[in-house]
């Protein structure tokens, strides 16, 4: 029987890297965005990603801004689906860093949490983020994820009050996803002031890795985020480039600048 309290592979990996003093980098790509899209994963790993978030596109991404909405629409128009994306991952080359799927709860419920988590597992995915599944609704998925050895990472927001934040930190697996600002995903000119306060509040209650996401788009912002958190998630800044036609090599160069910024801090 699985020990449902034991962290899975994603968390072990991130903790080990964090404990060497390294700033963690988790870039995001929308699955199925282009033919041969899994080559982005290899490029991300080569640029020094510590984990990679793979979006399973949903028709109604209610927490995403224009860039990831457009990426989702583009991927779906190309015929992307959970099944095909997971098949691509199973067939593609292992990028050598943990993969974390992210999607909306409707796609998890479609085949049911158990079948969904088992499918992730078969495709070599080790973690999961579901932005419209708050902690008080997470029981059924948390159990299925634990049983399948998938780390279900929960999101914390600047609006989350303290006792609830402690519960999120306690029940999150892999890392705690700190949402830097009150808003949707999308590039921003500066790191939100709420980011520092939120990460400080999270860290008071847990030693689990804390990744800051939403809006982080430049090396400077990554460097600043690193002062507060264990690392960053970079989504819209990646996907805007992909939508503008940037290939895996271009993204490797872009992410290398973020890697460097994190290493300097």
């Amino acid at each position, binding site marked *: 029987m699985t020990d449902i309290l034991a962290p899975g592979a994603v968390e072990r990996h991130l903790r080990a890297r964090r404990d060497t003093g390294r700033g963690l980098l988790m870039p995001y790509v929308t699955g199925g965005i282009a033919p041969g899209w899994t080559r982005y994963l290899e490029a991300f790993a080569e640029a020094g990603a510590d984990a990679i978030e793979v979006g399973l596109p949903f028709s109604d991404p209610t927490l995403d801004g224009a860039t990831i909405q457009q990426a989702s629409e583009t991927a779906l128009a190309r015929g992307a689906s959970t099944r095909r994306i997971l098949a691509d991952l199973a067939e593609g080359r292992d990028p050598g860093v943990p993969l974390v799927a992210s999607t909306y709860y409707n796609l998890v419920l479609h085949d049911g949490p158990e079948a969904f988590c088992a499918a992730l597992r078969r495709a070599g995915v080790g973690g999961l983020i579901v932005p419209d599944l*708050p902690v008080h*609704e997470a029981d059924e998925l948390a159990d299925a994820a634990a049983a399948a050895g998938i780390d279900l990472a929960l999101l914390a927001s600047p609006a989350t009050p303290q006792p609830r934040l402690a519960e999120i930190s306690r029940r999150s697996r892999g890392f705690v996803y700190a949402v830097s600002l009150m808003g949707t995903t999308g590039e921003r000119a500066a790191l939100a002031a709420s980011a520092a306060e939120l990460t400080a509040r999270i860290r008071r209650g847990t030693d689990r890795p804390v990744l800051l996401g939403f809006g982080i788009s430049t090396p400077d912002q990554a460097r600043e985020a690193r002062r507060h958190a264990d690392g960053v998630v970079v989504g819209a800044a990646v996907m805007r480039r992909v939508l503008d036609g940037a290939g895996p090599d271009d993204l490797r160069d872009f992410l290398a600048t973020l890697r460097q910024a994190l290493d300097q801090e």
Partner: protein
Amino acid sequence: MRDVPPWREPVPAAGVMGEPRERGRFGGYGGRYAPESLVEACREVDEAFREARADPGFRGALAELLALHAGRPTPLTPARRLSRELGVRLYLKREDLTHTGSHKINNVLGQALLAARMGRRRLIAETGAGQHGVATATAAALLGLEATVFMGERDIERQGLNVFRMRMLGAEVVPVTTGSRTLKDATSEAMRHWVGATVDSHYCVGSVIGPDPYPWMVREFQRVIGDEARGQCAAELRTGVPDHVVACVGGGSNAAGTFAGFADTPARLVGVEAEGGAGAARGRLGVLHGCRSLFLQDDDGQIVEPHSIAAGLDYPGVGPEHAHLRDLGRARYATVTDEEAVGAAVRLARTEGIVPALESAHALAWVIREAGGGELPAGSTVLMTLSGRGDKDISTLKELV
């Protein structure tokens, strides 16, 4: 009838359409599937609503607005000529006669008062037909609040009159250009906007959808339809209670408000959906816009874009309480086509002198189709909620009639 489970004898069960269970559950549906950034805001709305509802001062203020501004109570009109033609006794609950022309004002006045009580300065709303947007703009003007209304580009085209009305009332109308450019996308965009505006803005959801407490709260604000109709039926019908209670269902707010007045009676409850937006009749379990309910989806779990001539029914799902009532067999859900709805609108205009909203015409189309058959035997008494008036649909009707 396709896809519709057989009638179970309606059981006037205690607790049906009462307060939802723990965490906003109606059976296995409902809940608060909101992004973490909105969870606290939902909790605040829930707390404020519970307090307000227990406060005679709030209840009195709302009753006064409903009476003096919205024109309640609305009449129960016997549809005499049409009844004779159909062989049933049809009564219309006239929400079309409210100020702004649809039942949406009932909910909006409640939520706007609540927002003011919570110290919010602005209302955010989504709208399909524009009726909820117009009601929101109206209530905002009345209470000195701002209003920002999200509306799909496609709906802006077909409901131009309401767009102008909203702007006239001082609201900002934001066109939504994503997805099917209708109600579903306007709702997504309103939610996204609320995430960044929870400090000073209240999201005034327009139907019995969304995260807890909205499905319950909106039903309670619409309950006035059913409560009034219950009293009016008791006074006017020989049997006291109609045999059938019928309403159209987009998200399901006018139906929920109507059904709430009759859940504990033997009346058969019928929700009528658009053929192309039949969440209750053809949806499958899912989560969208904050709640677990029934939604139209493809084989991959993507939400299917609905299609209805009635912009207010162009929603791919149904409120969680309707999903629950369906499972219980307490209500049943049928569908009618665009053509049937347009035909019903024309027939009501010519027999009763009432031009209904195309949404409401769906409920009537079901009555017309089933009257005298097994679903609706000759001689039955039918209460139908006429949720709105047809002025907003004139340009659509002009092309078809």
